[in-house]
């Protein structure tokens, strides 16, 4: 049996790096330290019936094809399109993302990540008002107040609280849990709320009003007896905790970014955190879902200057969220081919966008079968990043970690990066008149 230590879990933005994986005869026996979600990801390596061969849609359904043929088809699709969309990128390593960006530039397409359906509003808010943040080790060593807003880590980031916030002992928090207070703000009493010291149940869609109430009180104003379904005294006492803590953290999730108001919610929440710095130390971290959605915005930003929704149709990067982002481009029928890498838009895009996707030429690189692999004209299975392929991922606090390879991919499978490199090469061949 092989024992791999310090393995990185390629599942959620918590990006735990202490997993011990036991492998025997190409099977994962155990993934120690991983949570339920992480464990399931490692164990899924043992599933049989994994696709090895690219599949292309013909007159009578899907038929198998070779990797060379698949690469050529994707390359032709991208070259023939006027404005192709290259979408996804949250569940692959930075090295593959980097090739993806070069490909988008080469074909004059639009490249975008799932940020536009999860934390895009956070990025827009950051670009409006800024981003007071810290790394998660700061939280562990210093924080005595953690607020989870619109985020349910017990389910979505199960080890977040045990590694960084609620439970661990830190340099200035030697007693661990006893030294810390947790507030949960959510539309329903989640499991996370169940272990919080204080729970504020905000009425659905009223997050903006609640942030406003906090800011108004903080800046010396007054508020009605009840705001967003919460009594004034509860708002005031939560605010008192924020003002008087030594080091406060706001973790926010899609409950806040995707509730009505979207980036205005985050604008306002960031402003609240900025205001709180007049009283004490306060910071925030978005609870990014997919393990490397953060890495994609980093790579795209240092290469192009912009974090998502970058349009290369004019030969230089253009960024205009709402115009150069996937959901809008698809819903308005403005792209004429779609190439998906490591994402499942068919499952989580609005209906109108999916309908257009179904109409235009499309291809996907994806290790598993998903609604998107059925929807696209062509799918190329790939090796699994972070388990069969090593490479860089960025944690939700932007800390870069190198994911390890712990087993070989089944023969015949290539990594996302290798497939993308083949496509890029082919695109250049075609453009050069081959």
């Amino acid at each position, binding site marked *: 049996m092989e024992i791999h*230590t*310090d393995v*990185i879990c390629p599942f959620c933005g918590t990006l735990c*790096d*202490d997993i011990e994986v036991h492998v025997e005869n190409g099977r994962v026996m155990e993934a120690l330290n991983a949570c339920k979600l992480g464990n399931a990801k490692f164990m899924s390596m043992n599933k049989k019936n994994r696709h090895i061969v690219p599949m292309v849609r013909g007159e009578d359904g899907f038929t198998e094809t070779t990797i060379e043929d698949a690469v050529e088809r994707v390359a032709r699709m991208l070259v023939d399109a006027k404005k192709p969309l290259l979408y996804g990128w949250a569940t692959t390593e*930075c090295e593959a993302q*980097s090739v993806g960006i*070069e490909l988008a*530039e080469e074909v004059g397409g639009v490249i975008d990540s799932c940020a536009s359906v999860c934390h895009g509003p956070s*990025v827009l808010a*950051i*670009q*409006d*008002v*800024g*981003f*007071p*943040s*810290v*790394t*998660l*080790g*700061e939280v*562990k*060593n210093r924080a005595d107040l953690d607020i989870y807003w619109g985020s349910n880590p017990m389910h979505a980031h199960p080890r977040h609280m045990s*590694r*960084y916030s609620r439970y661990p*002992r*830190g*340099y*200035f928090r030697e007693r661990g849990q006893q030294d810390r207070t947790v507030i949960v703000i959510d539309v329903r009493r989640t499991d996370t709320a169940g272990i919080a010291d204080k729970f504020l149940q905000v009425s659905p869609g009223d997050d903006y009003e609640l942030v406003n109430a906090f800011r108004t009180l903080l800046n010396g104003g007054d508020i009605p007896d009840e705001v967003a379904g919460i009594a004034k005294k509860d708002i005031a006492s939560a605010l008192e905790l924020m003002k008087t803590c*030594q*080091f406060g953290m706001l973790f926010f999730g899609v409950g806040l970014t995707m509730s009505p108001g979207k980036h205005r919610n985050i604008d306002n929440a960031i402003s609240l955190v900025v205001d709180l*710095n007049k009283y*004490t*130390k306060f*910071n925030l971290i978005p609870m990014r879902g997919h393990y490397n959605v953060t890495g994609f*915005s*980093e*790579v795209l*930003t*240092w*290469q*192009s*200057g*912009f*974090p998502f929704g970058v349009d*290369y149709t004019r*030969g*230089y*990067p*253009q*960024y205009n969220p709402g115009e150069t982002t996937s959901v809008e481009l698809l819903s308005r029928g403005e792209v004429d081919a779609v190439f998906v890498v490591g994402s499942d838009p068919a499952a989580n895009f609005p209906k109108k966008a999916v309908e257009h996707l179904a109409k235009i030429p499309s291809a996907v690189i994806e290790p598993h079968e998903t609604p998107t692999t059925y929807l696209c004209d062509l799918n190329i299975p790939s090796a699994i990043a972070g388990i069969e392929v090593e490479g*860089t991922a*960025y944690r939700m606090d*932007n*800390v*870069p*970690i*190198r994911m390890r390879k712990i087993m070989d991919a089944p023969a015949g499978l290539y990594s996302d990066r290798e497939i993308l490199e083949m496509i890029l090469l082919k695109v250049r061949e075609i453009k050069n008149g081959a």
Partner: protein
Amino acid sequence: MELEIKNGVVFDPLNKVDGEKKDILIRDGRIVEKLKGKHDVIDASGKLVMPGGVEIHSHFAGGKETAGRMLRPEDGARTVYPKRNGLRSGSGYSMPSSFTAGYLYAQMGYTMCNTPAMPPLFARHTHEELGDVPIVDKSAYPTFDGNWFVMRYLKEGDPDKLAACVAWFLRATKGLVIKIVNPGGTENWGWGKNAVGIDDPVIGFDVTPAQIVKGLAEVNERLKLPHSIHLHPNNLGKPGNIETTVETLELCREVKSANARQTVYLTHAQFHSFGGDSWKNFESKADELAKYINRCDHVVCDTGNVTLDETTTMTSDGPMEYFLHNLTHLKWVNKDVELETAPGITPFIYSRKNPVHSVQWAIGLELALLIDDPFKVLLATDHPNGGPFTRYPRIIAWLMSEPYRRYYMEERVHKGAQKGSSLATLDREYTFSDIAVVTRAGQAKALGLSELKGHLGVGAHGDVAIYDIDPAQVDPSKDFKAVEKGFAKTAYTIKDGEIIVKDGLIRATPQGRTYWANPVVDHELDREMLKDVEQYFKKYYSVNLANYPVQKEYLKRGREIQIDARDVK
């Protein structure tokens, strides 16, 4: 591959060549005495020939650099660079994106760039990004200002383990230089506090900024690192900070240099030369710093010129960035890094109409003109903090022309600059040789890399910049516009003997080297120190020790500088 550069007017101060007509020969990437066979010839008659430029302090790549780009799409939209001639596209006025930064530096004749504030935990990011900066050789300076191991060994009075530990961090981060930013202040910023005097306590660690600076300066020499400590003192940008600056430099006076160079490098000196006690009576104290530096041999600084542009400030000085944000109320990014440091970012609009900004503009130039030896005061804008590096040609023109400066004084900037500084009284004008010092030779020497960089003697890298300026025709004092234009784009940039830029256009984009220092201390000591590191890591970092060091894959063309420091035991 062989190349002959014929008949150029050569300025190579490290070899005492001052404007002589001279041929430069390159074989296999190095300057040689003789060529062997068939070779390309560049006719450089009537052109200025200098060693490739060396950037000693520019935030062109790294974690906060990318956070700065992300913060400001308006800066990206302001200047775009289309994909053409096989080059990658990009964007950014004050903060060009990675490929573009490499191209722009090469077009100005630079062949080495160093990114000066790398939080160790983000080293992997820095090196990933450096891999996407083409052409130039490069390195990164890891920050040690708030390093918990450093502070712990200082407090315990264990200089040996301290040295071993610093060596370990350089190795783990693939860093070249010990960088210190607002010593102690960045740790205190973990509680929203700062350190404003060199004897202020660091909360929870029982040490002072003075101990951090002095301790690391001594370690630096015991490890015989190529460069000295690279220092951004406390109180950056505060009226009256000159006192702190001089006090801090004084700490390193008695430190013995291991490599016959300075023992402290003061970066962006402009931001540390303020007098007055508020913005109302704010004034330049460049004269005071210059007097100090003229008198001693242990300090080299760079100017940190302000170019009066709209820019994006980014430093590892979190409390300072917050202070700035409170002045301007512009958007603000904070990025505290566990056990290490605390970067911050905020946009800043320098205005010609603002008296304070105008004095700052004057201070950067005053320092260059008041410090006698140009090897002690190098040209840099702390890109992008004082202004983008693309403004270097204009700064060169200011330094070479009193009338150009006077024109700015009288017509362009706020009159406050005349009252608040001595610039109007300075008639010194830099020579081409002085310019060669403050843009390449001085940098290479201060970095301890002058065997390979910053000169055109036999054995040096074949890095050459050829500018379309004919010293026999151009009088820089009068033709300052020609100087500014001439230094903006080279006629040729040659890197390792390869023609990279011709007539301002990029022709090749090779991958540059990444230099890093590996001082090897006594094995036993190393082991003992690592035991402490292991213990601390488990308890306080949020990543495992095994996942912390930068893997070799991240250096596309790494160059290890191994140093025998086994006498440290």
